């Protein structure tokens, strides 16, 4: 049996490690356009940015994989009938295919990387940004999501002058909803970050960010944190269902003997009864083990409660489940004005999410309740 994995990053390589652990001794080939194995990404917006001596840590070493690495090579297409992946002039046969090609930083016309304008995805990107985070440097972050907020915190701690421009009315609103987004917006503002919320960016010019409001922000360095888009273009015409990601069933199967894992997988999460795509570390790790189990012959669905963490403001934000604007928010430990808190969202008493800031012990009982589908005590 031959297994081909497209993507030498967290989801793809963890799938291989899980397969090996399950005793799968098939020949495995990994293809990635990048010239080397990806590094662990969570530190890139956190400790790596703050510490000039920090080195990127690869997700896995070749000897942990027992796989043939075809790095710096671009998978161009999939032929499902022929069971092969196009790789330059040749075709790579597979019995099982794992699509783990991940996602790439989102850009827009006029909002693209260039001199002094950076995205953050790889260790090389992070090193470039780190070189610009000098005390007193004017840092403008376009996009106030988790990554933007983490970079803002790190840059402030390095003595930079920091502004965030975000079209939505609060930071991290997609992940936290409007109320908690507002709580963290206030905290970042109190930390000295200039927030330009509800404002888009019209263009980024040399050392100048022009807002849709007409204002301009002077910048020594601009970081674009506009989210990511799944790397699906090579799958066009393959017959796989592509809808902002590769559509999969609950077992992460996109087609017979074809799986998708990590950022790129839009799978039917049985917990929610809908297609979900999650771009977070834990999701990639967990999906890798689920896909490996399925490939190894143990049918397994992926029905996890989503989990994401973010280190910023000197603490740790942890989110279980999905925070939605239409659900009700309740603080169950601490308050928005206290250093530590836990808040939950519920719909008619049924718990939907639990969000903690530097309060893991107080948060965990709510995670358990989320998994069990519990009703919140009045």
């Amino acid at each position, binding site marked *: 049996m031959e297994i081909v994995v497209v993507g030498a990053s967290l989801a793809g390589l963890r799938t291989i490690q899980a397969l090996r652990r399950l005793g799968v001794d098939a020949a495995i080939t990994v293809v990635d356009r990048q010239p080397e194995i990806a590094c662990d990404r969570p530190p890139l917006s956190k400790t790596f940015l703050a510490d000039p001596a920090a080195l990127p840590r690869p997700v896995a070493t070749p000897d942990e994989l027992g796989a043939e690495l075809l790095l710096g090579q671009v998978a161009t297409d999939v032929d499902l009938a022929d069971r092969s992946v196009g790789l330059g002039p040749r075709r790579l046969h597979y019995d099982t295919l794992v699509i783990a090609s991940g996602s790439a930083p989102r850009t827009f016309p006029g909002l693209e990387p260039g001199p002094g304008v950076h995205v953050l995805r790889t260790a090389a990107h992070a090193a470039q940004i780190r070189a610009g985070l000098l005390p007193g440097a004017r840092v403008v972050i376009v996009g106030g999501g988790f990554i933007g907020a983490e970079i803002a915190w790190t840059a402030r701690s390095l003595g930079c002058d920091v502004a965030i421009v975000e079209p939505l009315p609060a930071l991290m609103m997609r992940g936290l909803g409007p109320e908690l987004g507002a709580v963290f917006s206030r905290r970042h503002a109190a930390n000295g970050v200039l927030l330009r919320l509800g404002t888009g960016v019209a263009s980024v010019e040399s050392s100048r960010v022009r807002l849709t409001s007409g204002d301009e922000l002077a910048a020594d360095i601009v970081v674009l944190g506009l989210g990511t888009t799944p790397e699906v273009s090579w799958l066009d015409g393959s017959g796989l269902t592509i809808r902002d990601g590769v559509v999969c069933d609950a077992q992460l199967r996109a087609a017979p003997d074809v799986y998708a894992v990590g950022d790129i997988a839009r799978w039917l999460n049985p917990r929610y009864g809908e297609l979900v795509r999650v771009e977070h570390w*834990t999701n990639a*790790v967990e999906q890798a083990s689920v896909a490996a189990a399925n490939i190894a012959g143990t049918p397994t669905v992926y029905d996890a409660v989503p989990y994401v963490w973010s280190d910023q403001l000197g603490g740790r934000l942890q989110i279980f489940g999905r925070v939605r604007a239409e659900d009700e928010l309740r603080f169950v430990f601490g308050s928005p004005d206290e250093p530590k808190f836990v808040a939950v969202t519920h719909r008619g008493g049924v718990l939907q999410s639990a969000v903690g800031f530097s309060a*893991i*012990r107080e948060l*965990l009982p709510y995670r358990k309740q989320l998994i069990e589908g519990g009703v919140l005590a009045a």
Partner: protein
Amino acid sequence: MRVSVDLNVCQGHGVCHMSEPRVYELDETDGHSIVIADPVPADLEAGARLGVDSCPERAISIVE
């Protein structure tokens, strides 16, 4: 099987405890991981291994 947490690396995410609370307990004050099943009983090995794999800091290792 035995597992070991490097407390210099552990950042108190608590993910190992979520993976298998019968192997990993969390410190009352800072949430650092404490191994409470040593050696790990055979029926908890899969959960213990999940804890190793899910640690964002790679602070947990399998000792033997």
